[in-house]
Structure formats: structure tokens, C-alpha cells
């Protein structure tokens, strides 16, 4: 029991240590540069500003989190399905890939304004921007996963009479789960940036992105950093959530034996 707790607590503790180190580095930077709080506030001031404004910031965090989560799911699902289609049908891959690469080469801020003009000030343009950022790493990683399926496994499946659909479900799909999570983790950290860009362009509802601008306009640097802390929490939290899902869904990547609950034990024959 203690060992299992220790194994689970290990990565968490490492994260806590990493966070503390970042805060220490931040404080040291403030001390070393001697810059005033209106340029770089010390961590304590940023945290106290966050707490003082929590009633307002919690509402804004909810809005940004909502945009991030929905846009992320949208991008992940579209990316995964697109990658599957591209992996299965070569013509689709050849046709779509250049467009995908071009789509990522265009700065997202450049398309944000036209999106608002086309779709208005509601949540739609924000979701599109978040999905736009998320779907590409998912597509690329899943495609890589599909391309690296063991040829021998495919041949074996065919020899054993597996049709293309069954081969896909039993051999190809499991092979791309690992790369899928790699794409999902990258997307999880970037998604919140997409939500902020969406809010910055034009919005009928305020979120952390618009708060950040307002605080900056008021030269409330501590407020800017408080919003940045919350955005960081969303980004890191999203990553950890996907990481947790990955550990749960791909147990073979982190352990060599199945967990006890999943182990099949044949019933003892009656003597």
C-alpha cells in the first residue's frame, strides 16, 4: 500500500518541487534586477493580488476554462478523425497535408480578426482558434503512429484472416494511442493560449485574456501576473489531466504487468 502511494505521489512531488523552484527563481530575479513591482512584481504580490481579486478572477477563469476545454475537445476529435482518414486514404493525406502545414504557418493572430468578422463575438471564433492550435499536433502524431505500425504485425493480422477494418481496430488503432497522447499533451498546454488570443481579438464576454489587457492598461502589473498565474494553472492542469488519462489508458507504457484489478485469473477447477 505504502509503495503504491509512494509511486503515485512521486510525480506529484516532483511537480511541487519544480513549481517551488520556479517561484524561487522568480523571486531571485526580482532581487537580482532590483526592478520595481510595476515592472516585475514579486511572487507574493502576484499571489496576494490574485487572492484579493478572486471573486472576479474566478468568474473570468471559468469563462476561459470553458473556452479552452470545449475548443480543445473539438480540436482533438477533429485532429484524430482527420489523421485516421489521412492514414487510411493516401490521396486524402497527399491532398490535405500541404493545407494543414500552411494552416499552421499562418500566424493565428492574423486569422483571429477575420474569424470574428465572419462568426461574430460569441464563443465560435474562440473555439475555432483553440481547435486550430490543438488539432495539428494531434494529426501529426497520430499519422506518425499509424505510419510506424509494425509491418510484421499487419502481415500477421492479414494471415490470420483479419479484414481491413478488424486489422485497423486491433493493430493500427492501439499503435497510435501513444502518439495520440503525445499530440494531446502538446495541445493541452497550447489550448489556453488560443483562448486568450480569441478573447483579445473581440469578445462579448470577458475572460482572463481580457482581464490581462485591462490590468495592463491600468498599469496593474501585479494584476497581469495574477492572471498569468491562473492561465499557467489552466495550462499545466490541462497537461496533467491528459497525462493522467494517458497513464490510465496506456498502462503498458508505465508498467510491465497489468494492474491487479485487470488481471484475469482462471477459476480453479473443482476437485
Amino acid at each position, binding site marked *: 500500500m505504502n509503495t503504491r502511494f509512494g509511486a503515485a505521489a512521486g510525480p506529484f512531488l516532483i511537480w511541487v518541487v519544480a513549481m517551488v523552484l520556479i517561484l524561487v527563481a522568480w523571486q531571485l530575479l526580482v532581487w537580482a534586477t532590483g*526592478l*520595481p513591482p*510595476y*515592472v516585475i512584481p514579486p511572487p507574493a504580490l502576484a499571489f496576494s493580488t490574485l487572492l484579493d481579486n478572486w471573486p472576479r478572477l474566478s468568474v473570468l477563469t471559468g469563462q476561459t476554462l470553458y473556452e479552452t476545454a470545449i475548443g480543445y475537445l473539438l480540436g482533438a476529435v477533429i485532429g484524430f478523425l482527420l489523421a485516421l482518414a489521412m492514414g487510411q486514404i493516401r490521396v486524402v493525406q497527399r491532398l490535405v497535408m500541404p493545407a494543414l502545414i500552411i494552416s499552421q504557418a499562418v500566424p493565428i493572430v492574423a486569422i483571429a*480578426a477575420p474569424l*470574428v*468578422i465572419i462568426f*461574430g*463575438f460569441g464563443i465560435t471564433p474562440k473555439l475555432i482558434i483553440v481547435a486550430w492550435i490543438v488539432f495539428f499536433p494531434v494529426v501529426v502524431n497520430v499519422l506518425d503512429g499509424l505510419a510506424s505500425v509494425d509491418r510484421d504485425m499487419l502481415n500477421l493480422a492479414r494471415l490470420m484472416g483479419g479484414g481491413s477494418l478488424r486489422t485497423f481496430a486491433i493493430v493500427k488503432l492501439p499503435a497510435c494511442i501513444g502518439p495520440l497522447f503525445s499530440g494531446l499533451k502538446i495541445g493541452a498546454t497550447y489550448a489556453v493560449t488560443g483562448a486568450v488570443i480569441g*478573447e*483579445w*481579438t*473581440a*469578445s*462579448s464576454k*470577458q475572460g482572463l485574456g*481580457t482581464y490581462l*489587457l*485591462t490590468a*495592463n*492598461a*491600468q*498599469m*496593474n*502589473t501585479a494584476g497581469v501576473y495574477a492572471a498569468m498565474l491562473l492561465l499557467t494553472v489552466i495550462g499545466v492542469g490541462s497537461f496533467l489531466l491528459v497525462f493522467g488519462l494517458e497513464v490510465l489508458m496506456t498502462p503498458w507504457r508505465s508498467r510491465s504487468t497489468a494492474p491487479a484489478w485487470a488481471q484475469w485469473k482462471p477459476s480453479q477447477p473443482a476437485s
Partner: protein
Amino acid sequence: MTYTKLLSATAGLLALATAFGAVPASAADLTTVRFVYDWPSADFELIPTLVGQQKGFYEAEGIKVDVIFPPDSQTTARLLAVGQAEIGFEATTDVVFGAAQGIPITSVGLYTKSNNWGLFGRPDEPLSLDNLKGKSIAIYTDSWTKAMMPFVLKAAKLTEDDVKLIIAQDSDTNLLLAGKIDIATNTENYLVPQVQETLKKDPTALVGKAAGAPDVPVWTYTASTDYLAAHGDVAKKWMRATIKATEWAAEHPEEAAEMFTKAYPEGGSLAYNVSGWKLTAALMKGDSGYMMQEDKNWLPIAQALKDTDQIKEVLPGSKYYTNELLK
């Protein structure tokens, strides 16, 4: 000619040129003043500075002005405070916020004297405080808009819930022209030329007092108090030259705008710059002359920010401005 002879000849020519002052000694003697603008790119409000540079007004005072464009529209005060620039140009609300946050900057001379901010509608679409209810109005996240909107809503006898406020980060003119909003909030000198250029018509407008807003200045020149204490003499030279340049540019608007358009072609067409600069220049002198400022210019702005809970208290006028450089 051998290599040695060539070297000797070159050295001789250089010595001769230096002796007779052909090498521009003045360039080395000039004191550099870094002027940080209020916006990440150039526009026609930079005309006085450019005229000062190109017509030699700064050089005549023994200074050389380097223009710096900040990373965003809210960084100017902080760049001044940490000594990354000497003179700044920014919205008057920035000075009030700076004072509230303890940033050691002060206004050294008003750029414009009256409020040309307001509400703008598409050409031929009626716009009045009586028909604002239910309209979608684009607002910026800047402090100026936040300070002015309550005045508009109060004059229209409305609350924020009676209108649909759209938060815009970039230009709201495009949203207005695309029919995505009913009303844009902006300053007249920027929005009107853009609409004129695009539609060849004037937008409908409620500007300044007509929009219910107080008649307060929008832009000002600033400096850090530390810099003024240490280099007030240089700042005074900058001020003298800038006033001369402003007077010249106001008297020769077409020529000044043409000069700007050539120097900053990305800053808009000549027609846009002429129109924008003429609208700007008309606001600059006021009753008290260029740059001069008084409590009545500043205290209403601070009060407006206090009334909208953006600052905690209104400070004495001396905390916001000084006329020392004009003496």
C-alpha cells in the same frame, strides 16, 4: 600608387578633413533623447517629432531624437520609469494610472487640449444618445474607453445591460464597416479619415461633450521625474524644439503629412495622414497655447477613473503634471 602611399594619403585626407570640420563634429556633440511612442507602429501623431528631426529643430537645440516604438500601447510609462527612454507620448489616463501605481512619471506638456473621443456610426445611419439602447458598441480594454463609457451611458440614461458591449483589441473600424457592430468608440482623428478613405463618406458621430464625455485632453508628453531632476535642461531643449516643430506642422499640414508618409509609408496613405493630422492639429493649441496644462485638464480625468473604480483616490494636480519645461 603603392599600398603604403595609399594609406598615407588616406590618413592625410582624414586629418585634413577633421581639422577643417568636414567630419560632422556636431553629430558627436548632440545629446541623444530617446522618445518612446504610445503605439507599436507609427501614425500621423508622430508628425511633430518627425518634423523636429527632419527640419533640424532638435539639432538646433543640440539634441538628437531617436524614436522608439513600444511592444504594446501600455508600456511607455514603464519604459520611462526604468530609464529605457527619456521622453514619452501616451494617453493622459496612463499618467493618472502611473501616479496611482507609484510609477515616477509626470506629464511635461499636453499634446492635445480637448476630447475628440466619441461614438461613431456608419454613414447615413442616425446616431444619438436617445437611440443607443440595444445597440452593439465596440469598446477597447484601454483605460480611456473604460473611463469615458460611464459618461456616455449616464448621458443616455442607460446602463451597461441596456447595450451590447463588444470588447475589441484591434481597430473597431473594420468591425463597424463590416456591419458587425452598430457603433465604434474611437477618437475622431483616427476613425473619420479611415471611414472617409474606405467609403468616401463621413461616419455619423457623437464626439466629446456631444457623447456626454468631459472635455479633457487625450494625449500628452511624459517623462520620468528622475530624468527631469537630472537632465531638466535637456528636456527643456526637447520641449522648445518640439513646440517649434508642432507650430510648423500645424501651419504646413500637407507638407508635414507628406514628410511623414515618405518616412513611414506603412503609416497610411497621404490622404489619410493629411486628414488625420489636420483633425489632430486643430486640438493642440487650445486657449493657453501649445503644451501648457492646468488642473482643469487633469483632475476631471482622475475623478472619472475614481468614479469608475479604476483608481482609489484623486491626487493633487502637481502629481500628474508639470509646466517646468515651458519656463
